[in-house]
C-alpha cells in the first residue's frame, strides 16, 4: 500500500489524477461546508439575481432561477459519486461472482453465464440504459438500476478471463488435492489474484459511470429537477449558448475533471498493480 502511494506520487500524471480525484471527492463529501449557498441545491428561486455571469459571490454565475451554480455543481458531484459508488457496489460483486463461477466451474455453468454476458455486452450501453429508463420512471433509483444492468458484464468478462488462466496454476490444483471446497477456491484462492485488475477497472469506471449518468440525464432520462445534476445542467444550459456560456461551461468542466481524474488514476494503478483490464 505504501509502495503504491510512493509510486503514484513519483509520476506527474498520476499526481494530477490524484489531485483531481481528491478535489471531486472532497467537494462531494464537504459540499455542505464549501458551498456558499447550500440551500440552492433545492427548489430555491431568486429573480433579483438570475442568469448572471460569474461575479462575487456567485463565482460560477447563477442559473435561470437565480441559484448559485458553484453550489449546485458541488452537490451534483455528490449525486454523481453516490451513483458511481452504488452502481459499482452492485455491479462488481455480481460481475465478479459470474466471472469466477463461469471461469472456474466450466461446463454448462460457463456456457450459460458467458452467453448471457455476451448478450448484454452486444447491446450498446447507452441504448440498454435508455430502454431500461424508458420502461421505468426516470428516477435516481431507476437510473442506478439502468447503469448497473449494463455494467456488471464487463466485470464478468474481466474476471472470467483471469479465472480461466489462474485455474491452470498449481495453487488451484494444490487446493483441489487438499480437498478445499469450490467456494474456497473461487473466492479465497483465485479472487485475491483478480483484485488488482478489479480495483484498476473500478477506478477507471467511476469516471465512466459519472459520464454515462450525465449522458442519461442530458437526454432527460436521469435525475429529475430540482436535484442538481451535471448532465441536466449541460443540457439546459445548451439552449442559452453562447450568451449564457457559464451555464454550460462550468458543469461540462466539472464532468471533464471527474472523468479525466479517475482515468489518470486508473491508468496509473494499472501500471503499478499490473492489472490487465
Amino acid at each position, binding site marked *: 500500500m505504501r509502495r503504491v502511494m510512493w509510486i503514484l506520487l513519483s509520476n506527474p500524471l498520476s499526481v494530477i489524477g490524484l489531485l483531481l480525484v481528491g478535489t471531486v471527492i472532497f467537494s462531494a463529501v464537504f459540499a455542505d461546508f464549501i458551498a456558499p449557498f447550500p440551500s440552492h441545491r433545492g427548489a430555491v428561486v431568486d429573480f433579483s439575481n438570475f442568469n448572471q455571469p460569474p461575479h462575487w459571490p456567485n463565482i460560477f454565475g447563477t442559473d435561470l432561477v437565480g441559484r448559485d451554480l458553484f453550489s449546485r455543481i458541488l452537490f451534483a458531484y455528490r449525486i454523481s459519486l453516490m451513483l458511481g459508488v452504488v452502481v459499482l457496489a452492485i455491479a462488481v460483486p455480481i460481475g465478479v461472482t459470474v466471472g469466477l463461477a463461469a471461469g472456474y466451474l466450466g461446463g454448462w455453468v460457463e456456457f450459460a453465464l458467458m452467453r448471457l454476458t455476451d448478450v448484454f455486452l452486444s447491446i450498446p450501453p447507452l441504448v440498454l440504459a435508455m430502454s431500461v429508463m424508458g420502461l421505468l420512471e426516470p428516477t435516481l433509483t431507476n437510473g442506478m438500476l439502468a447503469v448497473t444492468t449494463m455494467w456488471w458484464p464487463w466485470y464478468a468478462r474481466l474476471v472470467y478471463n483471469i479465472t480461466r488462466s489462474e485455474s491452470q496454476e498449481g495453487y488451484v490444483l494444490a487446493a483441489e*488435492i*487438499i*480437498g478445499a471446497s469450490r467456494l474456497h477456491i473461487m473466492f479465497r484462492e483465485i479472487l485475491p489474484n483478480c483484485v488488482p485488475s478489479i480495483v484498476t477497472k473500478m477506478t477507471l469506471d467511476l469516471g465512466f459511470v459519472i459520464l454515462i449518468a450525465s449522458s442519461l440525464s442530458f437526454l432527460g432520462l436521469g435525475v429529475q429537477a430540482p436535484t442538481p445534476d451535471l448532465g441536466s445542467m449541460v443540457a439546459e444550459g445548451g439552449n442559452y449558448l453562447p450568451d449564457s456560456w457559464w451555464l454550460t461551461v462550468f458543469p461540462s468542466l466539472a464532468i471533464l475533471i471527474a472523468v479525466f481524474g479517475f482515468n489518470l488514476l486508473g491508468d496509473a494503478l494499472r501500471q503499478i498493480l499490473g492489472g490487465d483490464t
Partner: protein
Amino acid sequence: MSRSEIMNAPVLEARNVSKTFVTGSHEVKALDTLNLSASKGECLAIVGESGSGKTTFANMLLGIYPPTTGEFFLDGMLLPARRNLVLRRTIQLVQQNPLSSLNPRRTVGASLRLALDVHSIGDRPGRSLRVGALLEEVGLPAEYAQRYPSALSGGQRQRIAIARALACEPEILVLDEPTSALDVLVQARVLRLLDELRHRRNLTYVFISHDLAVVRNIADCVAVFERGKLVEQARTQNLFSNPAHAYTRSLISAIPIVTDEEDELRRTMMEPRHAH
C-alpha cells in the same frame, strides 16, 4: 518382482491401468496397461523421458481424472474415481514448480492452514502452532508463516509445498519432479529432507523424475516408463548394476559423469541422515 516386495504387502497398486486422451478426432495413448505396486514406507521412483506418461499416472493416482481402464488399490481396497475427504488426505502431492503451486497472494501460513482447516486437524487455536511446527519440520523458522511466497527462495518454496502436503498427514506422497526446478545444491538438500521425512513419518513415496541420477540415492525401487509403457521395474541397486532393458541402459548412460567433488557433495548431503 523381487522377494522383499512379495513379502511386504503393497500399500499401493495399479492394475491394468491405461489412459487414452481424446482431443477432437485425435487420440493419445498416454499409458498402456500398466501394472505397478509400492510397498509401505518405500520410495518408488518412476523415471522416463518427458511425455512418457509419468504425470498422467500421478494424476490418476490422485483422482484428478479416472483411468480409461484399470484400477488403483490402496491397502487392497479399490480407490474410487470420486474421492472423499479421507482418501484425498491419504494421498498428497508435491508439484514440480513451487512458484506456481503456492498462491502468490496468500501467506505461507494461510496456505498451510488450509489443509488443517479442510481436514479439521487439531483444534482451532492449536492450528497456528501446528503451522509453526510444520515449518520447523521442513527446516524453516516458524515466523515464515507471515511471509508471502515472493519473499522466499525456490528451495524454501518447495519446502513449504512439502509442509503443506504433510499438513494433511498423508500416507502416500506423490512427488512429481519435486527438485527439477531447483539448482543442484538446493536439490540435494531438498532430497535429503524428503528422505528424512519419509523415515520419520513412515511415508510411502511415488517419486517421479526424468533424471535417473536424482532417484539413485533416494529410491528403493525404480519403475522405468517409455512412451506410456512400463519397460522395467527393479530394486534400485539391481537396476543400476544390471539394467535389463536397453532403454534403461540408455537412460543410465545419459546420466552426466559428475566430477569427484560433485559426487562427494551429493554423498555427504545424502548420507549423514542418522548422524544428524
